[in-house]
C-alpha cells in the first residue's frame, strides 16, 4: 500500500552491496530533484539493514536501489523482509540496473513495486512516481 495523495515525494536512493558504480544513480538523483522531489542519497556499499534504517529515520515515501552487480535477487528479498519487519509497509521499493526480464517479473511479484532496466528515460521514472503518489 503506497502513500497516496501526497503533496510532495521524499525518496531515498542507495547502492546496495559490493557495487561502486554510482554514475547512474546520481543521474537519477539529479532528475528526481529537478522534478521537485526531496532526494536523499546514502552512497555506495550500503547494507539492506542500513538502507531500511535510513528510510525509517528519514520518513521517506520511496526507496530506490541501483544494482549493477547481479546480486539483485538477494538484496531485494532482504529489503522486502526488513521493510515488513520494521512496519514500513507503505514505503514503495523501486529499483533499476542490469536486471534480466525474468528476474524483474519475479521480484515485482514478490513485492518490489517497480523495476527498470538500462536505457530507461528518467522521465518515465518521474511519471511513474508522480502517478503513483501524487494526486492527479
Amino acid at each position, binding site marked *: 500500500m503506497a502513500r497516496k495523495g501526497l503533496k510532495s515525494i521524499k525518496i531515498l536512493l542507495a547502492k546496495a552491496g559490493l557495487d561502486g558504480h554510482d554514475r547512474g544513480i546520481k543521474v537519477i538523483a539529479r532528475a*528526481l530533484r529537478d*522534478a521537485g*522531489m*526531496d532526494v*536523499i*542519497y546514502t552512497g555506495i556499499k550500503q547494507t539492506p539493514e542500513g538502507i531500511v534504517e535510513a528510510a525509517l*529515520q528519514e520518513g521517506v515515501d520511496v526507496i530506490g536501489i541501483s544494482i549493477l552487480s547481479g546480486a539483485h535477487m538477494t538484496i531485494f528479498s532482504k529489503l522486502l523482509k526488513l521493510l515488513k519487519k520494521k512496519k514500513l509497509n507503505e514505503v514503495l521499493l523501486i529499483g533499476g540496473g542490469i536486471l534480466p526480464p525474468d528476474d524483474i517479473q519475479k521480484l515485482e511479484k514478490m513485492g518490489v513495486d517497480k523495476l527498470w532496466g538500462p536505457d530507461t528515460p528518467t522521465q518515465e521514472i518521474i511519471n511513474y512516481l508522480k502517478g503513483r503518489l501524487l494526486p492527479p
Partner: protein
Amino acid sequence: MKIWQSWFKDALSGHPDAISRILTLIERGEDHPQFFQKIYQNDFQIYTIALTGPTGVGKSSLVAHLAEPLADYQHLGIIAMDPRSSISGGAFLGDRIRLGDKAHHPRIFFRSFAPKGSPFSGYLTAKTMARAFGTFRFGCVLIETLGAGQSEWAIQHLADTTVLILSPESGDEIQMMKRGLVEWADIFVINKADRPGAKQLEAALARELQNRANDSKWKPPILLTVATAQNGQGVEKLIEGIEKHHQFLKITGKIEENRLKNQNLECMLWALSMTWNQLSKTRQISEKKLFKNPHQEAQRLLKEVFHERKK
C-alpha cells in the same frame, strides 16, 4: 481521533517508526493545534547544539565525528538541513551520506530535511523537531544548519550552543571584521586546518574575539580540526569545548536566560510564518501588476489578512 495521537503514544515509549512519523508531520507542515500541544506536552528543554557556517567547510563531516561521542551515554537526535530549489521545488539532501556507518548507532536518530514555505520555516521546523526529540526523552540534539554567512542572525537563537565552522578559505582579516556569525558564536572551528591559511585565520579571529563585549565570562575557543571520512583530527577538543560551554551555561544560569530569548523569537517567527502563509494564499508574488507604491500595497494587504482572520 487523529491517527497521530496513537503515534505519540508509541513515540513516547521509544518506537523509532512512530518518532519518524511525527517528524514527518513536522517536516510537512502539520498545523493542528492539538498536534503542537502533544509536541510540547513534556518538553524537557533538550540541550541543543547548532553547527553552522558557510557551505562546504565540512559541517556534515564534523557532525559525523561528533555523533558517536555525543551518543555515548544518551540518545542523540541529529537534524540536518539542506537547501530547496526555488525553481523545481526539489532538494538534494546530502548530509546523511557523510555519516557513513555511524548512522546505524542504536542511540542516533538522523533526520534530514529541506525547508519549504516561508523563509522562517527552516528555523521553525528544526526547532520543533528538536522539541519533539526532547519530548521523546532524547538527551541531546545536534542541528546542522544550511550553509550560512552574513545575515543568518536567527541561528544564534536556535540552540543553546552555537558552533561556527570555517575553513582557511573562509576569508581574511577583513572578512572577520564584518559582523554577523562571527559576533555571537560560542565556539569557533577552523576545519580543513591542514590547508594553508589556517594559522592566519586563527590569528585574525583571535583579534576579533579580543574586542568582543565583555558582558559574558565565556571566552569562545578557536579550535583547529581536520575532519575527513576516516579521521576527525581535533574533534575531541571540540567535544570538550561543547561540554565546557554546556557547563558554563548551567552554572551561570545563562541557559534559562537564553532560552527565554530564544522562545520569544520562536513565537515571533511563528507569527511571521503564519502571516506569510496567509498572504501566499491571498496573493501570488508573481502577479502581473506593477504597484506604484509597494509599501502602501503591503499595508493594504496586511489589513486584508488580519481582517479576514478575525472573521
